[in-house]
């Protein structure tokens, strides 16, 4: 049974209470602080007690008493929202994100705001103005990113579930590194209202869970149309799977581009074993090709920075956040000094790249070209799913969690951490990562990719694989 279901059932049966959960989570958060994970940016016992009192006063819901951590780029009125940036230090939003409103409406307890790469730009959670997040199993390594704080608190059993956000893999990649489940829904499935904008055509609020069932329960609450986000699709919320899927007669495609010759041997061994399990469960497994996936990372690193350069123009020191008055004392001096001092190096780098690819003379060569390649990437998935393939299976990441500092000096090598996740984000498809084994104690994730809006079917396949595989088994033993 999932941890989320256990909590809901215990409270429903009178064996626990929201107040007891608040005290338990406070103790776990305090313990996480002593372990110096640096995964949490804001929490307090008082706030948890207020959450418990609020939940006591409302009717029972699907998530009554379930503590959920929130990535600190999703706005909340009760805690600051910093986006891991000095430019927003101390900012408290005047409204809650729709996903937060829905969680609270279902009885969930907002437990903490979690650390992240600044404005969700990064793959290691080393680019936070408030220090890097440590991997729960090996503090010398990174937890992945950009939702590394949310991944770490779920992996460390502080909370059973957390919200993160995806732009190019920022939930699936840390889920893989930390040995938990990460689910990215179809673009438009979950409202972006209250998610601080980074790459608007890519951003998706996404979910971490200790198990697939945990993540599915959260997704079923936060998904669905929202009049406050015109890009949400007018469909009902994602349904919970009935249970693990029967894989008899199902076809799982293995895109050959995601199994390159230089794939880490441990990752290859873990994915090979997972593929064997899928076969044993009755699935027909066949090789397929997504030929334009090799261009996903360069495409992503044109489109996402271009959208970021536009979205982050709002941080100007005029309306909210930190203000630095420049030397000349004029308005433009204010803009430049505030943004120069408030943004960290990776955010500045992406704003410059985005401004460059949108500037006169380079727009067609970079931005238009990337948009055209994005079409090809999406068409590849459409063709494969149109040829009788039900789901795709790949490794989530090319390596297990890497050492802190290993890639911070080389932005391109950091960007390649998203090589198996970026194409799915560009195509707007749902995907999930689930643990399928370990290498030297470090978790390896397998990725399931589904056709648009088939989250429920994908989650059911995830449950079947999860039930049949030992995620703690060493892949190379």
């Amino acid at each position, binding site marked *: 049974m999932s941890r989320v279901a256990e909590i809901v059932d215990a409270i429903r049966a009178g064996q626990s209470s929201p107040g007891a959960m608040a005290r338990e989570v406070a103790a776990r958060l305090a313990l996480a602080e002593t372990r110096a994970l640096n995964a949490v940016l804001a929490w307090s016992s008082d706030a948890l007690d207020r959450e418990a009192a609020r939940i006591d006063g409302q009717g029972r819901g699907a998530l009554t008493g379930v503590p959920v951590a929130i990535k600190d780029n999703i706005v909340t009125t009760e805690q600051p929202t910093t986006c891991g940036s000095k430019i927003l230090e101390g900012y408290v939003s*005047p409204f809650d994100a729709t996903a937060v409103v829905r969680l609270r409406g279902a009885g969930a307890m907002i437990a903490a705001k979690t650390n992240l790469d600044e404005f969700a730009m990064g793959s290691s959670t080393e680019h936070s103005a408030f220090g890097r997040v440590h991997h729960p199993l090996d503090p010398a390594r990174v937890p992945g990113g950009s939702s590394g704080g949310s991944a770490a608190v779920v992996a460390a059993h502080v909370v059973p579930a957390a919200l993160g956000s995806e732009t190019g893999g920022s939930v699936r990649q840390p889920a893989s590194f930390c040995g938990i489940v990460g689910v990215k829904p179809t*673009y438009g499935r979950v409202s972006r209202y209250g998610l601080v904008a980074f790459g608007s055509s890519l951003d998706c609020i996404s979910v971490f869970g200790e198990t697939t069932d945990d993540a599915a329960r959260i997704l079923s609450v936060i998904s669905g149309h929202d009049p406050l986000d*015109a890009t949400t699709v007018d469909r009902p919320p994602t349904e919970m799977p009935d249970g693990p899927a029967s894989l008899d007669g199902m076809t799982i495609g293995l895109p050959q581009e995601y199994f390159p010759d230089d794939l880490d041997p441990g990752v290859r061994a873990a994915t090979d074993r997972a593929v064997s399990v899928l076969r044993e469960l009755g699935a027909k497994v066949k090789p397929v090709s997504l030929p334009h996936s090799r261009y996903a990372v360069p*495409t992503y690193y044109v489109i996402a920075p271009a959208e970021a350069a536009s979205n982050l123009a709002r941080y100007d020191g005029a309306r909210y956040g930190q203000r630095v008055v420049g030397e*000349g004392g*004029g308005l*433009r001096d204010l803009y430049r000094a505030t943004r120069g001092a408030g943004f960290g190096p990776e955010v*500045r780098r992406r704003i410059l790249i985005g401004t460059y690819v949108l500037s006169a003379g380079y727009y067609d060569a970079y931005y238009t070209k990337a948009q055209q390649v994005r079409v090809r990437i999406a068409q590849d998935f459409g063709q494969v799913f149109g040829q009788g393939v039900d789901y795709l299976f790949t490794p989530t990441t090319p390596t297990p969690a890497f050492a802190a500092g290993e890639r911070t000096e080389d932005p391109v090598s950091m960007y390649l951490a998203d090589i198996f996740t970026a194409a799915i984000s560009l*195509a*707007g498809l749902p995907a999930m990562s689930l643990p399928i084994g370990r290498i030297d104690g470090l978790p390896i994730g397998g990725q399931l990719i589904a056709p648009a809006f088939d989250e429920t079917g994908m989650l059911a396949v995830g449950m079947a694989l999860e039930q049949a595989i030992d995620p703690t088994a060493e892949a190379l033993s």
Partner: protein
Amino acid sequence: MRITREEVLHIAKLAELQIPDAELERVTDELCRICDYVDQLNEVPIPSQAEPFAPGPDRVGLREDVVRPTRLAHAPSAFAPEFVDGFFLVPKLDGMEEE
């Protein structure tokens, strides 16, 4: 391709970003490396009439255009650097007029 220091300074001006002199060389080098990396997109043959890709709904569903009260948990004065009598205060526009 090679992006020059002057181009980086021009981009920074467009982006309203101050870059310290000490960081300029490193930033220029990083932008060059990133652009060299994304230049591989030129390998992909694309027909001239290719349509751009837009994820999400086929058509944006507009809600009724009705003015409703906006309930804010905190007033703008609580999060704005300077807010007086319903206005966000900013420095004089002198610097902008010069450019």
